């Protein structure tokens, strides 16, 4: 416990975090690429087409859509957790993490919307349906963009961090409310349920789980890359950054 606490504190040090993430990153990328290669092989080649609902090959869109949608939600929750850590323990690196998750989370949300839309066209004949999940994703995208816009509107970064953190926390309280409201509203209007839950055929499970794993790792890798840039951005005047940039330090710092 004491060890975990100390480690948590060390993560608050920009230099330590930068060095550690620099060590982790190649491993994460390696695992990502392996998993992604296997996942793509299964999802695009070695998996059957969907017959029961007549989706045919479009079922393959699911293997990017579902991970993107899952990550869009998880990323926002992660943002809110990091925001809470930042506000409660006054930990600046937690704010840097919030800022780093936001663009990747927004990208995932956009991808969930895009692939959902492309999946929708052949499945229910329209690019956009106001179904509960798609609508929630759209609102989630607005929340991400709102955070990024808010953060960008301050000249004082520490104010931007704290204001953004509050927004992230308020947003995460609202996500279930938004989702349930939209779902209720959707049943009221008898909309489709695109992503209707049924027992997933095991043949589809293998590529889906592989792609889920690959996308999670990819997400982590991208967030860490953004975080490392953010750390440097925030510590430009620190001596260790100069040493890192001019290569005077013996420690490995390159990504």
């Amino acid at each position, binding site marked *: 416990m004491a060890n975990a606490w100390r480690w948590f504190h060390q993560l608050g040090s920009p230099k330590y975090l930068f060095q550690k993430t620099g060590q982790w990153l190649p491993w994460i990328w390696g695992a990502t690429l392996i998993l992604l290669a296997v996942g793509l092989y299964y999802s695009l080649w070695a998996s059957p087409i969907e017959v029961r609902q007549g989706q045919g090959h479009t079922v393959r869109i699911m293997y990017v859509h579902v991970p993107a949608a899952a990550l869009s939600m998880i990323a926002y929750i992660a943002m809110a957790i990091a925001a809470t850590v930042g506000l409660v323990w006054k930990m600046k690196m937690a704010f840097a993490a919030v800022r780093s998750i936001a663009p990747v989370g927004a990208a995932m949300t956009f991808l969930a919307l895009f692939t959902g839309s492309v999946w929708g066209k052949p499945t229910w004949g329209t690019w956009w349906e106001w179904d509960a999940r798609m609508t929630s994703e759209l609102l989630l995208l607005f929340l991400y963009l709102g955070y990024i816009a808010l953060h960008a509107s301050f000249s*004082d970064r520490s104010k931007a961090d704290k204001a953004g953190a509050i927004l992230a926390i308020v947003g995460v309280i609202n996500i279930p409310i938004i989702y349930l409201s939209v779902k209720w509203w959707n049943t009221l209007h008898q909309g489709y349920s695109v992503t209707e839950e049924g027992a997933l055929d095991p043949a589809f499970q293998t590529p889906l789980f592989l792609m889920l794993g690959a996308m999670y790792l990819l997400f982590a890798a991208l967030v860490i890359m953004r975080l490392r840039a953010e750390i440097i951005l925030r510590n430009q005047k620190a001596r260790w950054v100069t040493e890192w940039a001019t290569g005077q330090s013996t420690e490995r710092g390159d990504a």
Partner: protein
Amino acid sequence: MSQSQDIQFDGLYAHELTVSRSEQVLLEDADLHLAPSTITYLYGENGAGKTSLMRCLAGLLPEDHGVVYWNKKPINHPDSGYFQDLIFLAHSLSMKNELTIAENLRFYANLRLKGRVHQKSLSNDISGVLRELGIGGLENRMFAELSAGQQHKVALARLMLEPAKIWILDEPFVNLDQKTRGWLADKTLAFKEQGGVVLFTSHHHIDELPVDQNVGVEHE
């Protein structure tokens, strides 16, 4: 971390204070003691961080590092009573254009005293102070209708209407006529005699006001 028991200083004491504004560290590890019954003159070039230091001492700007104590307790400690004792007059006058002079002043007095104030005598006090400041009879004028100099005087009138033990004043003497400078210097000295702590900034020395301590925000 220093515990509050370790602090021996009465009045305002800033310990190892680091203050920054928009990513820029203005002040590093500063120790500052403002004892009761002292007047401190804070100087420094423009942009050196005088205002930020004052706002930090007033508890508005969060410090990067260090603690500010009021009578041996951290200022944010509920028992320190700091915010009851503090009048902070910032560069902005903090008065509403939509309210009359009397309404503005009465609001702040009521807010500080939590409404436990005799409204009639407060009105009399307001009239008295405004008379001293040479703007007597303007109580019911809208704040927006006054000249800049008059508005400044209204802001200063708060010092006489709200009981306090520490004044933090950002450029209080700027734009004041000779007579009002004298008035403010007299009142500041009287406040000091009663045990008050005063910290003020100014572009140049105020001849009317003998100070006990000069504090400069400077490069080392």
